[in-house]
């Protein structure tokens, strides 16, 4: 409940900022690109000339939603409770991005708690227009404060994200599941898993800078479900 209140307040704080802070969706991402699509046509120009000058509308950069253009990258810093982390996303072309993320319990326990690193691929088949959607598959490892007597904690995860890129902000929802191995020893317990379901919002500033907030629930079977939040700061290029 408190996380929901936090999310609502953060949404208010972000969305209540003066509208001039948000770049519209019609602006091209690359500042070196040609004239804007709305530039007036030269007198006497015909339709073919207008088409030749047309620049496709650039996709607004996002931390949560893909894809990035081929060779484009996004880096992000998340600060939250419980997890904080850094991530990078590299566009591979088409629907595909490569994702790398490292997280730890920074605000709660510094670097003394459980940390993790994850490498994945994000596939974003719905990326044009208002709605955007994708899935991410990842694998990684958890690091414990002391060596586990049961061996390494390998993780595999999947996440689905759906968002709406409006002119003034991008809203998204996501659902993720993560499996954690019981260690590599023969007597290790089996896999366990956890789930996250979250809602978030992002705004873009100066075409490259992204600020976002997300509230989510972290559920573990048989254990408590915890309300979490994170603030997200990104840079896209």
């Amino acid at each position, binding site marked *: 409940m*408190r*996380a929901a*209140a*936090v999310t609502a*307040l*953060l949404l*208010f*704080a972000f969305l*209540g900022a003066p509208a001039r802070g948000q770049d519209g969706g019609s602006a091209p991402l690359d500042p070196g690109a040609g004239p804007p699509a709305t530039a007036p046509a030269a007198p006497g120009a015909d339709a073919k000339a207008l088409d030749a000058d047309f620049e496709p509308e650039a996709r607004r950069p996002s931390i949560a939603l893909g894809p990035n253009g081929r060779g484009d990258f996004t880096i992000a810093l998340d600060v939250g*409770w*419980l997890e904080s982390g850094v991530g990078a996303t590299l566009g591979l072309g088409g629907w595909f991005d490569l994702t790398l993320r490292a997280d730890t*319990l920074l*605000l*709660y*326990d510094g670097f*003394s*708690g*459980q940390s993790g690193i994850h490498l994945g691929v994000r596939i974003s088949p719905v990326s044009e227009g208002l709605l955007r959607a994708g899935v991410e598959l990842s694998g990684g490892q*958890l690091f*414990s*404060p*002391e060596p*586990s*007597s*049961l061996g390494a*904690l390998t993780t595999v995860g999947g996440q689905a994200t759906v968002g709406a890129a409006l002119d003034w902000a991008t809203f998204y929802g996501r659902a993720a599941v993560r499996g*954690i191995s*019981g*260690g590599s020893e023969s*007597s*290790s*317990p089996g896999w*366990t898993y*956890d789930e996250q379901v979250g809602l978030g919002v992002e705004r873009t500033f100066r075409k490259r800078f992204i600020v976002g907030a997300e509230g989510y629930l972290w559920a*573990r079977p*048989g*254990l*408590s479900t*915890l*309300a979490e*939040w994170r603030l997200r700061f990104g840079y896209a290029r």
Partner: protein
Amino acid sequence: MRASLAAAAVVLAACVTREPDTRPFRIEATRAGVGPVEAGIAQATILVYDGVAHRQDDTTLDVALDGATGQLVTFTFHRDDAAEVAFPPQLDGQHVEVTVDVDPTHVGPEGEPLPIHGLLVATTSPAIHYQFIIGEFSSEDSHGLQIQPVPANQDAPWFHSVNDWAQFEPSECGPVYYDALQVIGDTGTITLRRGERGEISIGAAGQPPWKALNVMSWHRRSACGAKPKAWTQLAAWR
């Protein structure tokens, strides 16, 4: 500005912590007309009672002690977090030996006194044959506990809590990591996470396997007031 300050305040307020939901067995052993068996005991002791068992219900066992008096000792426990744990029906009417682990300094998960931390029931005819174990153990050492309720080569399992690190609760004193429980039998070892149950064979062929339950096991790395650093709560029965 006000919105930002308010947001920051709410964010801080949303930094929730949570303790593991630990519900001890709170084992009691009461001698009719006398009172709790641990009364007056000043140091860790093992008490042994022999007699004929009468199973009142899943969590209450009367034992009419051998001897002319036939005095009753009643053993009870709470199973708030382990509904499947019960005194086995086969104990009813049998001659049994009940072993009670008493330690007046032993504490529960909140630091509360918990002087009885283990109960072991065996049938005795024609020989000692273990049937039921419940135990809850706190420790100031956050590394794995070795729990050996019976001597070697007896027909009951041994236990070892191991630091798993995969799951934790964000307690106010730092993470509390749930531990796994290794159950060691004749033919191998099984490892159970919190709430998990497994079966393991011990003793002569043809004997029913032991069922073992890791009710709750956790440890924390940092001290937290009167609370122990580690807790293991287990049950096993035939």
